[in-house]
């Protein structure tokens, strides 16, 4: 520790060069931190929202096409299906000028808790969701974003149907990433009836299967059952459903991570070059230090410490930048359902520790050879050459 002030003074010797090198390292670390959040964010997002025993069934022609609502009863009747509900996209907006800010669906409340038993929705909320015709269950992300709370009444204007409905929030989906807004299908049906237009279709059916091993055969059975029917169906597990949704993104993330790795390697070379320049400028001074009794190990350690401290401090700065950027991204993306998944990309403590270790490593690797070379130079020869 007694050499620390000496090391720090040397770091401040050429402030501009130190600053520029530190900036390059900080930028690389920030980039790595942000990219490191992506696979973990996608995985955690998929894990948090998806289940292997939950199956989605939609029109084979595409999710935007409807299916007869009567399909729901037929799916429920299949042995092995624990529970099933329908989803009908409502496309409601709080403010039409801002568009649909969160996904909202009309669902069947009776089986909702059983289909989504892993979401840990409070029993009282599920009970109230079944009990009150205008009840709504809202994801915590949307609640926080809009400043809503349980008990509030909110009105959504549909962008799909010519109607406006008011809802009483009776509970939340307790996941900060959850942005969905669910309400009773019956409420929607009654609204349609009031307007003289009955509704007998649905957009999607979600069912829970009792045994993971039976998921595949039951999915085949569902699709077989509706073959040549009014609307043919395509079924897939929830994980597969969302996995496919994000698969292209994962590929891009992989490419970006490779690029980030190459960038980091470039930064190592840049930092090594800076360390070499710094050492080369001080060959005479280093020889003097050796002459007055500084052993090779001490000279090597102090030079290496310079590179490691500079790099680690830059790493701290880069990690903080990435933390700020991801928090900002989280705030921005939580406003739109399309970007909702990105709210899960958070720079975790683990990523921060990894980033600092990486920064330290960059310092050590980049400083090693210049420090070794300087400490091994012959003192007498250097004195002859330099002075």
């Amino acid at each position, binding site marked *: 520790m007694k050499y620390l002030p000496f090391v720090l003074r040397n770091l401040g010797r050429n402030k501009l060069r130190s600053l520029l090198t530190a900036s390059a390292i900080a930028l690389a670390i920030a980039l790595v931190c942000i990219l490191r959040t992506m696979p973990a964010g996608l995985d955690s997002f998929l894990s948090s929202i998806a289940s292997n025993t939950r199956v989605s069934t939609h029109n084979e022609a595409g999710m935007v096409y409807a299916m007869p609502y009567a399909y729901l009863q037929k799916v429920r009747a299949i042995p092995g299906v624990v529970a099933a509900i329908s989803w009908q996209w409502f496309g409601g907006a709080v403010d039409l000028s801002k568009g649909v800010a969160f996904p909202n669906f009309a669902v069947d409340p009776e089986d909702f808790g059983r289909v989504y038993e892993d979401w840990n929705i409070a029993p009282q909320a599920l009970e109230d969701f079944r009990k009150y015709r205008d009840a709504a269950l809202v994801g915590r992300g949307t609640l926080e974003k809009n400043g809503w709370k349980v008990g509030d009444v909110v009105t959504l204007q549909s962008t799909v149907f010519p109607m406006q409905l008011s809802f009483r929030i009776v509970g939340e989906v307790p996941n900060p990433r959850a942005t969905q807004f669910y309400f009773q299908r019956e409420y929607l049906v009654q609204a349609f009836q009031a307007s003289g237009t009955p509704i007998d279709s649905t957009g999607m059916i979600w069912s829970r299967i009792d045994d993971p091993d039976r998921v595949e055969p039951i999915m085949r059975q569902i699709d077989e059952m509706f073959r040549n029917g009014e609307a043919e169906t395509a079924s897939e597990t929830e994980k597969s459903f969302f996995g496919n949704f994000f698969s292209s993104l994962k590929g891009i993330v992989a490419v970006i991570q490779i690029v980030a790795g190459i960038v980091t390697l470039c930064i190592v070379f840049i930092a090594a070059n800076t360390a070499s320049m710094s050492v080369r400028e001080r060959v005479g001074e280093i020889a003097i230090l050796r*002459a*007055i009794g*500084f*052993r090779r190990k*001490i000279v090597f350690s102090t030079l290496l410490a310079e590179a490691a401290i500079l790099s680690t401090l830059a790493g701290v700065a880069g990690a903080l930048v990435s933390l700020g950027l991801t928090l900002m991204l989280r705030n921005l993306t939580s406003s739109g359902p399309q970007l909702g998944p990105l709210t899960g990309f958070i720079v975790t403590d683990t990523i921060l520790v990894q980033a600092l270790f990486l920064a330290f490593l960059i310092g050590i690797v980049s400083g090693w050879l210049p420090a070794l070379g300087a400490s091994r130079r012959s*003192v007498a020869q250097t*004195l002859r050459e330099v*002075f």
Partner: protein
Amino acid sequence: MIDITNVSRVYQRGADEIHALEHVSLHVSKGRFVALMGPSGSGKSTLLNVLAGLDRPNAGEVVVGGRRLNELSEDQLAEFRAHTVGFVFQFFNLIPVLSAVENVELPLLLTKLSRAERRQRAETALRIVGLAERGDHLPRQLSGGEQQRVAIARAIVTDADLVVADEPTGDLDARNAEEILSLLQTLKRDFGKTIVIVTHDPRAEKWVDEVIHLDKGLLLETRPGGGLRDVAAS
């Protein structure tokens, strides 16, 4: 203090062999002020490096302060230099980012002294060289003569018995050169230091006890300097 017996040093420069020292033997008693003189390439700096433990001879024996330097490892030589030898170089060679007192304190980092003790000793050394008031100044804020005084303070701060100086007046004007030589003699006279300098400066002759002439790696002659003649005269 210094016993050098039959020392030779050969450098390889490309395909050529440079015989910097050839069978040089030398004895310097404790408390003497000695100047190594001779033309460029005569081997005087090599001899200084060898007796200060900076360079190893190819042949011969070097004993300084009772320690046989030939037998010491690199780390042991570093330790020997840290405790036994103080260095002064022509171009002052202070660390530019450290203040004068911090430069003087530098060799003490290698000791077990506390921070306060290190600072106290550094300030004492600066007081001895007459720069007590300039401790906080960076090297660039000091004149050439003052920088060389700081370098001398750094050389004596560990209380090394031997002070070696390579052209200590080479980059100074006449007045400052005289002051530095006077200071070195004071170190010898008042503190009992053994001082060996390499110099081209003929003014040095009147301050030193002995002048040793070298040429082409050979020790040509040893004769008394002005310092000894003064003593003899008095």
